């Protein structure tokens, strides 16, 4: 028992710290890393609760797929080129706070009702063991009691996939008009070809002709590259 308590507090503390780090970080990529760490810790808590299947699915779906794709986007879009990222509008702040408080109340109610009533749920360890483990138990519940919500979610996801395909392939569907012909280049703030300001030594700063105090994003225009598809195609020849 003491082992498990110790590990639980370690995992829990790390989960809270990484959640705080996710909010506190300035760089969105760092925030994403902390969120990933938080997900892994939560998966650890699931394992300690005996819900191994949930733990693994949490990692496969959220850590292994959703966050990877999110990072993908964060890396491609340079945050310094999006000024609205740093100066949150009042409306955004109000909505964000409201949603956060709503979520908090929801979770508190969910935990509170169970704690106040004091009754354990129907899925006791014995009931779970009877159907052959928590993987089987989740499968049974998903495909019987929650079959309708499950199918509706599948439909919504399918619609989402179709939407993504339509957005990605406009020309094949005859939606040529209004299509943006620009793609955002890999605008990594420190990966660009400009001379880096060096912390010490004023002469190098003079060489580069820029003041050190200037933040990286100021005065930089959004780098747009033309879509390679715009290149004229030679008739009868292959595009290289």
């Amino acid at each position, binding site marked *: 028992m003491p*082992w498990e308590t110790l590990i639980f507090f370690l995992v829990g503390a790390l989960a809270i710290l990484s959640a705080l780090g996710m909010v506190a970080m300035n*760089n969105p*990529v*760092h925030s994403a*890393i902390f969120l*990933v760490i938080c997900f*892994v810790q939560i*998966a650890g808590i699931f394992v300690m609760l005996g819900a*191994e*299947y949930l*733990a*693994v*699915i949490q*990692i*496969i779906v959220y*850590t*292994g*797929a959703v966050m*990877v*794709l999110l*990072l*993908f986007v964060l*890396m*491609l879009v340079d945050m310094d080129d999006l000024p609205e990222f740093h100066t949150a509008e009042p409306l955004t702040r109000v909505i964000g706070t409201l949603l956060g408080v709503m979520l908090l109340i929801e979770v508190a109610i969910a935990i509170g009702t169970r704690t106040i009533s004091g009754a354990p749920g129907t899925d006791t360890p014995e009931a779970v063991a009877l159907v052959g*483990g*928590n*993987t089987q138990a989740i499968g049974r519940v998903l495909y019987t009691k929650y079959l309708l919500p499950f199918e509706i979610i599948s439909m919504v996801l399918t619609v989402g996939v179709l939407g993504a395909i339509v957005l990605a392939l406009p020309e094949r569907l005859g939606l040529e008009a209004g299509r943006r012909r620009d793609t955002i280049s*890999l605008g*990594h703030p*420190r*990966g660009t070809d400009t001379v*880096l300001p060096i912390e010490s030594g004023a002469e190098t700063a003079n060489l580069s002709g820029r003041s050190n105090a200037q933040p990286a994003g100021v005065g930089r225009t959004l780098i747009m590259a033309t879509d390679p598809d715009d290149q004229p195609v030679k008739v009868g020849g292959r595009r290289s």
Partner: protein
Amino acid sequence: MNDQPIWLTFLVAFIIMNVLLIGMAYMTYFERKVLAAMQDRMGPTRTGPAGLLQPIADGIKLLSKEDLIPRAADKWVFFFAPLVVFVSAIVTAAVIPFGQTAHLFGRDVNLYATDLNVGALFVMAVSGIGVYGIILGAWASANRFSLLGGLRAAAQVVSYELILGLSLAGIFLLAGSLSLREIVLEQQQNLSIGPLEIKNWYIFSQPLAFVIFLIAAVAETNRAPFDLPEAETELISGFHTEYSAFRFSFYFLGEYIAMIVISLFASTLFLGGPSGPGSESHWWLGIIYLFFKTIIFLFFYVWLRATLPRFRYDQLMGIAWKVLFPLVLLNLVVTAAIRLASDGKLF
């Protein structure tokens, strides 16, 4: 399955980890020798008898190189990214069963670090974390070629992980379990087809899944001909362009250990793992069987690298989504139907 003290489990895990590290070193030797033989060369011969000390010399060389960090790099992420690849590759081995139990020094020792009841999914999950090492390292390098390599790795691994996972779903249906130990136990039974009696290895009942698994595994570990994230000719080694010395060696270790672990995983799932004649009574025979089954897959990896040119990126993604994905779904549906029919529930 018996309960054993926690220190014993740690000892087993420690041994597995070190065997993997040594295995990784000699995997590079094996790869160079096999590649050399296929290209009519000698391979390493100078260091030690038949070049056997070459991996150790390589290791010392890597560790003594200068450690360079680009000035524009994100220091902390740059530092941690290779470790993520390395650790996730090693942790995967925790659920691989090397046998059932062995009786050693008056104790019953489990020949696996843990028997997680979702072991097969655990392998998928942890290898999914491994991709963070690649994309974060690529981003932290502040190099466009690296970033391109990292983005390729992300798209490739996410696509092929789906196929890898679905190709195993047929096995889960047949075995009725996600635990690798139980999948191995299931494969020790005999399957009788008329007069023939063969082992119930899933390579026989799931041949299509096996082929798809092999292809997806090569892509998942970023090996030739699917090594697009580090395509030397276009990306100058891709995500690890800026890495040197021991930081680079962690990427290198991670890649090779991932290869070994996925080969172990493949032998466990499709070739019956440690099962074979006499392995029930002598546990060490099982380990030897598993070793040779794993060598088959590792040889296949090297063989592919020596034979096939690198794919183009759109071809890589096209194969995943337009060929393998429909095939793997077909395999799943057919397997499910057969399973239902054999239980008499279909009609």
